[in-house]
């Protein structure tokens, strides 16, 4: 090694070390994202207070908060949130189970894939909202048709994700399992499942995202409770604060359930060599 190389190597060492981040830098960066919505909200609040706008169609934050508080006080909020959560939970569960099983089989077996995949891809091309009339005819106007619609929405991303993940498991890694004489079930448990897990978590998250989308569609088609009902109710009674409150509730719960998946999966995915590793503990 020449002297030049050595001096370069010495200089590189400090750069390799982790930069100690100050408390300010650690909290200031995420806080930056809140600045814009906060400014807008505050600006609008002031505008309404100052009488520049009456705020009837676009309620100021304080009125939305009052609406929230009122809904929470009367127990309405809990009732609607629980109804919506329940539908998403059941629909997501059903869609996940079917999507996972079918995706795994189609990914594993070329024969099944050739048999089943074209039909499913064809069905996937149908906008899922288009199923609503049929589901209502078949399953009635109540819970079953709603849950079925959500399950359909959740099914496709999970089916696709699992199939793609199983198909793309590294043949070389599978061969390691063969070299150590793993049985079929051992191969699934020790090689295939862990190999598929990162893609599976992504599939679950996009499935859940669609689940939340479809629960609104389902609740629009006639419901007596749920956040989607609250939206329609707010529209029909001319209560924009109620609509915005329901939208906010959707945002919070949707994000929270997404975090739940990420949080539950995180301990199993610490091995991943990710490009973005922002919030490493």
């Amino acid at each position, binding site marked *: 090694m020449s002297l030049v190389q050595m001096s370069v190597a010495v200089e590189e060492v400090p750069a390799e070390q982790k930069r100690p981040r100050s408390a300010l830098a650690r909290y200031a960066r995420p806080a930056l994202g809140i600045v814009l919505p906060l400014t807008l909200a505050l600006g609008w609040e002031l505008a309404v207070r100052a009488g520049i706008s009456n705020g009837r169609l676009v309620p100021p934050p304080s009125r939305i908060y009052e609406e929230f508080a009122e809904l929470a006080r009367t127990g309405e909020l809990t009732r609607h949130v629980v109804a919506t959560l329940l539908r998403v939970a059941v629909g997501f569960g059903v869609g996940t189970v079917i999507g996972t099983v079918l995706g795994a089989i189609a990914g594993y077996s070329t024969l099944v894939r050739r048999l089943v995949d074209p039909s499913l891809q064809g069905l996937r091309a149908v906008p899922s909202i288009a199923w609503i009339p049929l589901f209502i005819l078949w399953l009635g106007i109540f819970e079953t048709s709603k849950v079925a619609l959500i399950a359909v929405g959740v099914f496709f991303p999970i089916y696709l994700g699992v199939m793609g993940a199983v198909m793309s498991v590294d043949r070389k890694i599978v061969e390691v399992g063969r*070299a150590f004489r793993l049985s079929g079930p051992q191969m699934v448990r020790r090689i295939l499942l*862990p*190999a598929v897990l990162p893609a599976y978590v992504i599939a679950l998250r996009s499935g859940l995202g669609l689940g939340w989308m479809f629960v609104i569609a389902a609740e629009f088609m006639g419901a007596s409770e749920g956040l989607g009902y609250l939206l329609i109710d707010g529209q029909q009674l001319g209560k924009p604060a109620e609509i915005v409150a329901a939208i906010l509730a959707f945002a919070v719960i949707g994000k929270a359930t997404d975090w739940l998946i990420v949080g539950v999966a995180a301990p199993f995915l610490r091995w991943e060599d990710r490009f973005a590793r922002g919030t490493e503990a």
Partner: protein
Amino acid sequence: MLNVEHIGKTYPNGVRALEGISFSVEPGEIVAVVGGSGCGKSTLLRAISGLDQPSQGRVLLDGEPIISPHEKIGIVFQEPRLLPWLTVADNVAFGLTDRPASRRQHRAAAALFRVGLNEKARMWPRELSGGQAQRVAIARALVPQPEVLLLDEPFSALDAFTRIDLQDHLLDLWNDRRPMMVLVTHDVDEAIVLADRIMVMRSHPGRIFEEIPADLQRPRDRHSAAFDHVKARVLMALDRSLAGERVPEQLEHPGTGSAMWW
């Protein structure tokens, strides 16, 4: 004793990758297989390992035919092929079936210590350098104490310094229990440093072209006259093994350099 008897491999598309390969490996012996790329070296090794089936012939380990991966045969691939979701220690323990788990962990820890990576036990494979990862792969293959260790160009992806380091390290590990080793490589120096016998292959179809003994004293000096003598023999054999293919190749481009076709 490992016996390879008249192994041939014909792919479904009719390409003959191997033909009539026979040799045997004595207990404690290291055999290197060298040859140009595409001569079927790796195909041969995969047939011996039981990962692939030969089309003709058979492989016998102590008289027992090998038709699928065998517990007495360990294999190290060109890439480390560590399981990224297991820690380094768990990767080493992957092939162990001992119970309870504490016994497995103990054996893996001992093997990891033996390859000098005990401090990396709790790390993920992605945190290792290429040489370290390959050492873990060797430890993983050796910890079940196989009678045969197969190595498929194990160091070809590493830089020259690491490669020499690992060659010496491999010999050191081999010395513990002296398993039979079959090493596939395209590095002539590597073959001579490690092996007792060097088999030069030629291609289309893959056959053993010449067998050259390398009965030098261990540890081997890479710069001795005896080393160079064996090296010259292997290189000459390689040259002759390629001769039949090189001539038409030269004829294909008669005036290379004088005028380009475009």
